[in-house]
């Protein structure tokens, strides 16, 4: 469904690459990519949708180069910028995207009622709180029979109750899904998903969220390492069942590495 190969990308004026030789394949599985803010997670998602130029590497969706795709209705995202087609109230925006995606606007309006977000329908996106804006994108991404869903920080500024509801919605989705987050503690909700770590533009993995408690981080290139990360602080290895610091109970990859370094 999604295949990214050796993707390296530097933003204009940027000093270091936002993505470094990233490869990723997603067929039917769900995957969560966890990493600190600025590690390249959102850029990875934008590259997958063809929203940033890809100077080196390839991105294919359903075996087609992302830049050659037209009218593929099954691929959705919650990225706010893709819903800025027109500055109309959210209710109108839903009808516009229902028409463009070939769906029924009542389906998504029902979801807005389920999430107690009816209030947002009368307002334009920029008039909403950050959390409400995020939820509008989240619900649009999960509407109109999506096949591949790409979610960027879907829980950012979202309250506890809606987080739980949205986790249930994601669990019920029957198809491939790629979710970025910087929140380690969210991983416990996705124990049967695949897992990747994003650090300084490098994607490490793939692991299983269920195996997180068995993973360790060690300084240097450890023999038998599952993955090796090259950073400005030197090399770090991710190993299974032994190592310097366990990832179990960690709050972020940054904190773990800083602890070791």
């Amino acid at each position, binding site marked *: 469904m999604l295949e990214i190969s050796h993707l390296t990308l530097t*933003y*204009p004026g940027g000093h270091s690459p936002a993505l470094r030789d990233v490869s990723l394949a997603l067929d039917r599985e769900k995957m969560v990519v966890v990493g600190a803010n600025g590690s390249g997670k959102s850029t990875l998602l*934008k590259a997958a*949708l*063809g*929203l*940033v*130029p890809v100077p080196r590497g390839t991105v294919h969706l359903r075996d087609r180069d*992302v830049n050659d*795709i*037209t*009218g*593929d*209705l099954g*691929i*959705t*995202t919650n*990225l706010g*910028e*893709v*819903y*800025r*087609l*027109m*500055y*109309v109230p959210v209710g*109108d*925006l839903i*009808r*516009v*995207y229902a*028409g*463009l*995606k*070939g769906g029924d606007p009542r389906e998504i309006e029902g979801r807005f009622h389920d999430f107690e977000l009816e209030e947002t329908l009368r307002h*334009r996106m920029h008039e909403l709180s950050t959390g409400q804006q995020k939820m509008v994108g989240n619900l649009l991404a999960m509407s109109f029979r999506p096949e591949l869903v790409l979610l960027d920080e879907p829980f950012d500024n979202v309250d506890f109750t809606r987080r739980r509801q949205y986790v249930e919605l994601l669990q019920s989705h029957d198809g491939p899904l790629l979710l970025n987050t910087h929140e380690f503690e969210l991983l416990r909700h996705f124990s049967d998903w695949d897992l990747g770590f994003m650090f300084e533009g490098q994607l490490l993995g793939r692991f299983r969220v269920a195996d997180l408690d068995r993973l360790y981080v060690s300084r240097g290139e450890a023999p038998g390492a599952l993955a090796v990360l090259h950073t400005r602080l030197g090399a770090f290895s991710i190993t299974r069942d032994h190592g310097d610091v366990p990832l179990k109970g960690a709050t972020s990859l940054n904190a773990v590495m800083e602890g070791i370094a």
Partner: protein
Amino acid sequence: MNLVGPYIKAMLLNRTLWFWGVAFMFFWLVMGAFVFNSGSSFSHAGAVDYTASWYGIIALFSLSTLATTITFSLSYSTSALAYGFRFTRLRPRDYLLSVLAGSGVLGIFLSVIMAVASVGVFSLHFGFALVPANLLALLGISAVAGTFMLVLAMSLMLTVVNYLGLRNTNFVGFLPLLLAYGFGIAQVNVSLPPWLEYASPYTDISSLFYQAFAGSAYPVDLSQAILTGSSASLQWPYLLLSLFVWILVLSAISTVLLRRIRPRSVEEGRQI
């Protein structure tokens, strides 16, 4: 998918358009009626010509504000358009046709408001009723002028977005407005060469508005015409032809640029 309705609604909800495209124009109309010509005396025909010249220029300014609003709106929509063309049923041609139609309607809407305001303010000043001579022509020109503003805005902004980044978007966003003020003020105050009056889409629009309001062709030398009643005048078929050529050329450019649209993040613009 018909985007005409949502597009018109989005534009009508834009406060910038209402302030700079409508309220600020009322200010100029009041200045034109009560300040700039205080002490001058006009015949009935002279008053009609004077009002028509103000209506032509004010309608032009108002529509160029629409163009500027469209350019800024577009600069925020590049990712949405790129996503839409890949992952929805939206096609560049359909999008262009929708916003062209929407801009035509908005052109009529703004021009009619300006016509009503001009009639009210100048009738009050001169003490007799002044009405547009050819309302149908006025509506037609309004729609054509609205579509011109759309393709102008789209060509300018997409050229910058696709090839130059967001560094120059602020300047380019105001370019339609600056050109309108430049050509509009020059046309009224300076005797521009006829070839330039025909070639410039801005003077085409203001001259056609003048003719629809006054019922007579726009004089090459407006001041002389108002004071003496005689001057060579511009031929409306050539003005209209020139405007249509501009619209066709800019539509073709817009279509090509829309197909190659390069998504830019708003954050990139903010950093600049």
